Structures are given as structure tokens and as C-alpha cells.
């Protein structure tokens, strides 16, 4: 079982290609392992760092695992940001998992190879890139994706609301978002702006709390970040409904799902596993299995849309093979 699993996943692996793993052996392994582990008291620690966006989901999972599954295992979750997290992940004896709100980069994979360990990517949930504005802002509640991009793009030609629509106020727009430390920024930069420069004067912040505050107190502010940060602050923020061409779509758990209407601004969030660690340390493997088994249950409450079961099953199979 080990041989099958270990060959493929490392490089540039597309989650889709996992179909290649043999389900049969995997199943057996899972049952055995599961049977063994239900009684086995594990101990040791699991170390997780990375995305602040994914943090609430992973923290909730970790807490559940420690309180109800394996009380002697210490799962510590940090949230340095996706890239900073990879910094700790891609070293010898680094972290076991790295949460990411963007896909791992080729350079990063290469580094893992250089250090000499295998990386496995798990999509864990779906996040809708949400644009938020001040509750007092009653004009920009519905915008087209183009308008949004033009606000944030360097040569979008938009600095005032009235540049978008003459009926809007003649006031400066204050665009803002998370800084380059965050996967959210990179997703936005690469997938939405398609690597065009950001507008001069965009306010990039390290902490999401700062952004929430900024927008909640500034009627000309507009910011982007993960859906979860919006859900938790609906009192002080409102989300922009985005018109992708077929009428405005409000981001919600339904619309940001894989086939929802908001899917264009939806992105998967990931956690990356150091497979060698999982092989070495039973608690890491066990925890990985736990995450895959339970992630959908925790996604909704923490502001993420769940993944299709099939996708998760593939991961479960892969883990069973370790």
C-alpha cells in the first residue's frame, strides 16, 4: 500500500490525477488503521502553520480532535500567513501541515524536493473572495466584476465612485485588502487581476481585523478578503453582490460552492502535508485522516463552502495508503 501512495503525489500534482490510486488496497488499509486507531492512544504533537484565512477552519478541527479524539496529541495551529507558513514548512523538520489560501508554487515545491520530503496537497474547502463595503454605502452594493477589477487595477481609470457611475458620489474610493503576506492577496493578484499592478494607494494590511475596522468606519472603503471574515462581521460590513454577466450574485455558502453562481471568484483553500512526517509520526497521519473525514462538517460554520464528497474520498484513500 505504501508503494502505491508514495510515488505520485509529490510534484505539480493535480488533485484530479489522484484517481490513479488503487481504491482496493486503500480501503483495506483504512479499515485496519481505523480499527487500530480507535483504541490506540496517540501522543506527540502536530504542528500547523500558514494561512490566516484557513486558520479558523483548521483551528476548529484541531480543537475538536484534541478534545474529543486524541487528548494526548497536541495540535498547535499558527497563522503566519500562507507564504510565511511555507517558510516554516519547507525546511528540515519543519511544520507538519501548511495551510494555504492559494496553490503551492513551483518554486516552493522545488524547495521541498531539495530538502528531500514529499508534499501532498489537500483541498479542504472553498472560499469566496468577498468584496465588502461600509453599511452606509448604498450605491455600490451591486457591481460588475469588471467594475471591481477597475477599482483595484493600477490603470483602471477609477479613483472616484463617480468614475464607475455618474450617479455615484463624487468621492475618492479607498481600496484595501490583505498584504502580500497572504494567499488571499496572491489569489486576487494572480487570478482576478491577472497579475496587473494594483492601483496606487491601495491600503494593504497584515491583519484582517484592521481591514474589517477600516471598512466598517469608512463609507468610501472597499476591501476584499475571504468570505469567512465577512460572515463574522455582517453587522458592520456589507458584501458587494457581483454581476458576472447574469445579474448580481450575493456571496453566500451556496453561491460560492463549486458550481454556484459566484464560482468565478471562488477559490479552493488548501492544506499541505509533509508526507514524510505523516509516515514517521502516527499522530500526524491520524490527524490528516481526521481532517479529511470531518472537514466538510466544519466548513460551513467557519465560513467556507464544503467540497464534494468524492474529492475528499480520494484524499482519504491516499492517506489510507500511507
Amino acid at each position, binding site marked *: 500500500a505504501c508503494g502505491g501512495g508514495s510515488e505520485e503525489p509529490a510534484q505539480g500534482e493535480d488533485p484530479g490525477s489522484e484517481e490513479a490510486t488503487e481504491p482496493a488496497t486503500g480501503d483495506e488499509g483504512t479499515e485496519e488503521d481505523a480499527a487500530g486507531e480507535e483504541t490506540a492512544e496517540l501522543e506527540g504533537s502536530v504542528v500547523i502553520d500558514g494561512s490566516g484565512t484557513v486558520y479558523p477552519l483548521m483551528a476548529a478541527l484541531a480543537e475538536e480532535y484534541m478534545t474529543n479524539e486524541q487528548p494526548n496529541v497536541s495540535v498547535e495551529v499558527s497563522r503566519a500567513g500562507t507564504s510565511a507558513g511555507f517558510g516554516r514548512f519547507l525546511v528540515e523538520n519543519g511544520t507538519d501541515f501548511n495551510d494555504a489560501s492559494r496553490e503551492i508554487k513551483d518554486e516552493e515545491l522545488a524547495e521541498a524536493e531539495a530538502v528531500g520530503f514529499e508534499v501532498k496537497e489537500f483541498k479542504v474547502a472553498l472560499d469566496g473572495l468577498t468584496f465588502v463595503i461600509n453599511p452606509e454605502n448604498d450605491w455600490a452594493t451591486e457591481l460588475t466584476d469588471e467594475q471591481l477589477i477597475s477599482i483595484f487595477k493600477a490603470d483602471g481609470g477609477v479613483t472616484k465612485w463617480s468614475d464607475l457611475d455618474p450617479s455615484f458620489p463624487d468621492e475618492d474610493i479607498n481600496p484595501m485588502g490583505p498584504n502580500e*503576506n497572504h494567499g488571499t492577496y496572491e489569489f486576487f493578484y494572480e487570478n482576478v487581476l491577472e497579475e496587473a499592478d494594483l492601483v496606487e494607494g491601495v491600503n494593504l494590511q497584515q*491583519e484582517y481585523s484592521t481591514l474589517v475596522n477600516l471598512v466598517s468606519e469608512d463609507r468610501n472603503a472597499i476591501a476584499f478578503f475571504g468570505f469567512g471574515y465577512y460572515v463574522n462581521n455582517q453587522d458592520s460590513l456589507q458584501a458587494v453582490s457581483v454581476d458576472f454577466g447574469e445579474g448580481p450574485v450575493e456571496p453566500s455558502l451556496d453561491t460560492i460552492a463549486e458550481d454556484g453562481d459566484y464560482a468565478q471568484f471562488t477559490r479552493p483553500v488548501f492544506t499541505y502535508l509533509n508526507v514524510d512526517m505523516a509516515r514517521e509520526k502516527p499522530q500526524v497521519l491520524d490527524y490528516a485522516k481526521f481532517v479529511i473525514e470531518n472537514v466538510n462538517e466544519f466548513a460551513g460554520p467557519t465560513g467556507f463552502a464544503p467540497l464534494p464528497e468524492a474529492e475528499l474520498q480520494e484524499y482519504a484513500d491516499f492517506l489510507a495508503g500511507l
Partner: protein
Amino acid sequence: MEASSGMKKGNAVNVRELIEEKKQARSISQLMEKLMPKLLLLIATISVLTTIGILFTLLTETFEFFRRVSLVEFFTGTVLRPLSQNPEFGVLPLIMGTMISSVIAMCIAIPVGLMTAIYLSEYASEKVRRTFKPLLEVLAGIPTIVYGFFAFTFVTPILRAIIPGLEPTNILSPGIVMGIMIIPMVASLSEDAMSSVPNAMREGALALGATKLEVTGKVVIPAAISGIIASFVLGISRAIGETMIVTIASGSSKNFTFDITQSMQTMTAYIVEVTGGDAPAGSTIYYSLYAVAMTLFVFTFLMNLLARYISRRFREEY
């Protein structure tokens, strides 16, 4: 001595003989006598090792940083975009943030601190002084994280109600709160300096018919000026090194501006941001952390030297 010990009235004990007898036992104390200074010197060198450790860690990595980024770019660049695709490493925005927050802080701390010191040292009764000083010391003992929380959740909203256009994270609010935090330091050190001016001098002035204010302004403060200025300088170096208040309340925009209503980042806050858990070793941004820390270290080091110089140089002889 032989003669003297014989005739002691006490018949039971002869201390002299006992002492002579125990002389051998004293070889242990003789050993301690030789050993302790060496042991203590060893302990005392730890503090030197600490300084060496700081310099060593900062310097090697800083050196590496400057192999990647030129000194000129670092010290003259007004743009800091370490994480960007085409990163820029100008430290000036951070220096600006640090300077502005410190200046704001000192605008609060110096006048209020000095006046507090004057009140406590010259006007307050002994009883008042004995209640107020510990209370102020409490203010000094509050962890800065608490001040950060206070700045962010209390002072900023109030300021925003007063000053339109003030951003939710700005350099003004942490600057003010930092000033409040430093008041006790300035007050306490200045008060020490002023109380150590001999009473004889006050009496000399009072006996000429001077009022308390005149005694304070023309005799006590001039006599204590070195200690007072040193307290200011130490306050500034505290402000420069302060971390949590600015990290929480001034945001992380690396603006190069004089506009205090805006979010700015200080050197310390930058270090927190970049380490944020653990810095990715080996990248330029990782090294930039050390370069900024080195700059910060040099800043505060110079301030401390200045404080020492002032308190020596301008000490009034009396």
C-alpha cells in the same frame, strides 16, 4: 595577645584559643574567598555575552542583507514592498513611522511627565507623593499589549469622532498612548533628579523670598537639568523600541508621509509582521528583518549613549 587572653574574667571559654583552633576550618572560607570573585566575574560576563550575541546575530544577517540590497537603496528608499513581485527595501517609511510615533509620544510625555515630576517633588506633601508615585508606577508596569488594546479599542474611536478623516489604524493614536505609557518614566526619573537636588539649595532660594515656582524654575530645574534631559532621552528610546502598541493600533501600511492620520509602520512593528510566527529563513525579506533590527538597535543605542553623555556632561556640580 597571649598576655591579654589569660586574664579574662570568663573561666569557661577561651575564645582566643577557640578561634585559633578553628583556623583550619577557615581554609574553606579562604577557598570561597578566592573562588567567588572568579565565579561572579563569570556571571557578570553573561551580560557582555548578551550584547555580543545581539551584535553578532544582527550583524551577520545584516551583512548578508546588504549583499543583496545596496546600502543606498536601503537607507534612501522611500518605498518598502518586501513581499511584492519586484520587492523594494527602502527603510525610510519605517524610520518615518518610528520617528513620528516617537515625536507624538514625547509631545505628551515630556510636558505631562515633567509637570508631574515638579508637582510631586516640589509641591506635593510627603503623603501625596507616597500615594501618587506608586500609582504612577502602576501605569508604568502595565504591559504594552494592554496599551495596544486600549489604543485600538478606545482611543482610536474617540479620536475618530474628533478628527474626521482619521483612519481606523493610524499613527496618532498609538503615538498618544505611547506618550501616556512613557509619562511615568519621565516623571519618575525627573522626580528623582529633582529630589536629589539638595534641600539646602531650595532653602537658600526660599530664604531670599522666592516663591516655590521661582525656586523650581530658577534653581531646582537648572540644577537637575541633566537628569531631566536624560529622562527625556530614555523616554524617546523607549518610544522608539515600543512594539505592541504600534503593532496593534497603527496598522501595517508602509506609508512614507508626514500625515499622522494615516496608518504607518514602525521598525518594531515591521519586525513583528515579518516574523509573525516564524520568518522564512534565507529569503531577502528574512534578512531585511535583521537589517531593520540593526537599524533599530543602532538608533536606541545612540539614544542611550546620548542619555549617558548628557547626564554626565551637563551635571551641575554641587
